[in-house]
């Protein structure tokens, strides 16, 4: 089987990619192995030393109806994948991206992503990042994004680990939000054994009426550790935001949450909630009183939280 096929299958998107109206780009380590474009979308790639650069453009007024699949994978057990992404969405345009990060054989892999994302006026950008890892944990995932949101734009990211172990993960997202823009960042991650999870999400609500929502759901079992830093800074009238972080710990897991909210305008308003602890006892006893043993009850509760 060719590497492209292996990755596409592991990501479970073989069918989607058959469709001629579905754009996609498949990278194996730092090489393009397959791509397909649709009108309104341009992708240019260039290989550079130790990495690959990809420029993605959505033209003004273009609405890419079908989800664009990006598949960033590594078929071999050891590699360094470094992707420099520059994404520019024109004005009054829209795109939904589904990024599959697939490392089914990872023993010692580093996945580095440096993204610069600009979303134009009145545009929509959604980015669902879905990871498939090995059960080894031999993986370092380092995604970094700097995001600029134009007036009235909507931006949404979601991070999920579908299969395998986290390994070492350090997410670093920072956004500057313009007038009446809406930003949502959602991450759901579960760590086991000696996994390490760090999430840093920061948004500056600089435009009038800008809104930002940072939500994290994390579970750590065994000796896994998680650190979540969420920060919202509001400097404009009518800016609104909410930080919501929930972490469940089991066994020797350790979790921390540092929500920072900063308001520098009397007409801005930000709230936050953070809860860290073991599985809620009343939830646990409810399920146990229906006949579940303690472990399956807590697994079900955690699965719900991460669903």
């Amino acid at each position: 089987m060719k590497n492209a096929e292996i990755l596409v299958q592991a990501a479970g998107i073989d069918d989607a990619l058959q469709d001629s109206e579905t754009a996609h780009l498949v990278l194996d380590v730092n090489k393009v192995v397959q791509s397909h474009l649709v009108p309104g979308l341009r992708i240019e790639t260039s290989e550079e030393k130790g990495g690959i650069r990809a420029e993605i453009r959505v033209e003004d007024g273009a609405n890419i109806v079908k989800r664009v699949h990006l598949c960033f994978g590594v078929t071999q057990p050891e590699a360094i994948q470094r992707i420099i992404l520059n994404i520019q969405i024109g004005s009054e345009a829209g795109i939904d991206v589904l990024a599959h990060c697939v490392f089914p054989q990872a023993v010692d892999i580093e996945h580095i992503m440096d993204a610069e994302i600009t979303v134009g006026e009145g545009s929509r950008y959604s980015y669902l990042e879905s990871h498939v890892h090995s059960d080894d944990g031999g993986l370092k995932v380092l995604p970094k994004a700097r995001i600029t949101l134009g007036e009235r734009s909507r931006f949404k990211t979601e991070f999920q680990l579908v299969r395998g172990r986290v390994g070492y993960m350090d997410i670093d997202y920072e956004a500057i939000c313009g007038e009446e823009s809406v930003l949502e960042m959602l991450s759901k991650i579960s760590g086991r054994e000696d996994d390490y999870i760090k999430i840093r999400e920061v948004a500056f609500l600089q435009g009038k009426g800008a809104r930002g929502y940072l939500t994290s759901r994390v579970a750590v079992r065994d000796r896994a550790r998680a650190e979540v830093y969420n920060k919202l800074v509001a400097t404009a009238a009518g800016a609104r935001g909410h930080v919501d972080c929930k972490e469940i710990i089991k066994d020797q897991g350790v979790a921390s949450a540092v929500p920072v909210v900063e308001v520098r305008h009397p007409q801005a308003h930000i709230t936050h909630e953070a809860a860290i602890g073991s599985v809620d006892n009343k939830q646990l006893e409810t399920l146990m009183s229906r006949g579940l043993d303690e472990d399956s009850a807590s697994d079900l509760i955690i699965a719900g939280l991460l669903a």
Partner: protein
Amino acid sequence: MGILELENVSLVLNNQAILDGITLDIWEGHIHAVVGPNGAGKTTLAAVIMGLKGYEHFGGEIRFDGQSLRGMSVSDRAKAGITMGWQEPARFEGLTVRQFLNASSRNGKDSEIEEAMAQVGLRPEVYLSRAVDRTLSGGERKKVELASILVMKPRLLLLDEPDSGIDVASLENIFNALKQLKRNGATVLLITHSNAVLRQAEHAFLMCCGRQIMKGDIEKILPYFEGECIPCDHKNRPLVETEVPGL
């Protein structure tokens, strides 16, 4: 012999006698009610029978089917057929009604899950995919709780204040579910403040200050709701319910 027997059951928490010498015989297949003022110890009694955390160290003896429950986990009591419906049921983020009922169900059959939902007045096509979280109203959550109990098919149900947060129109659904449980041969111990709920029972116990004051058929207990509290020497100072951790 009753399916559940309490013999001189007592519970001390923070140096206070919360339950004091409770002796009860709960007959199999009957609906029983425990009534009494706020702070009487009704919810605590259910917690002790279910074996909830913090309520394990009771005095006296509790037997289910002639077997002592002492030292048994909540899960094992449930496997033996005991379950409980909370006054304020827990919320589960991200868990759908379907998943919750499926986990509670003895056999996981979709048809039984939908039937149970219909019995408590929840339309499956509307509610199966809803989350059992904050977005359900208090009354809806209570109905889901009852549906989860129906599909579990318990032999003994401890049901704490089933009508709280339930509108008058939905009360019939709750009573229907009770009848269904009885038809299935289940034994029910209702904990209640309400006259209407008490009337669903065949036998009742009146509690005050952790002690049982009176027991008998409901006609004997009903006057409690008309007059004031039946005289007893209130010894303890009951906490308000919101101060009770975890219940």
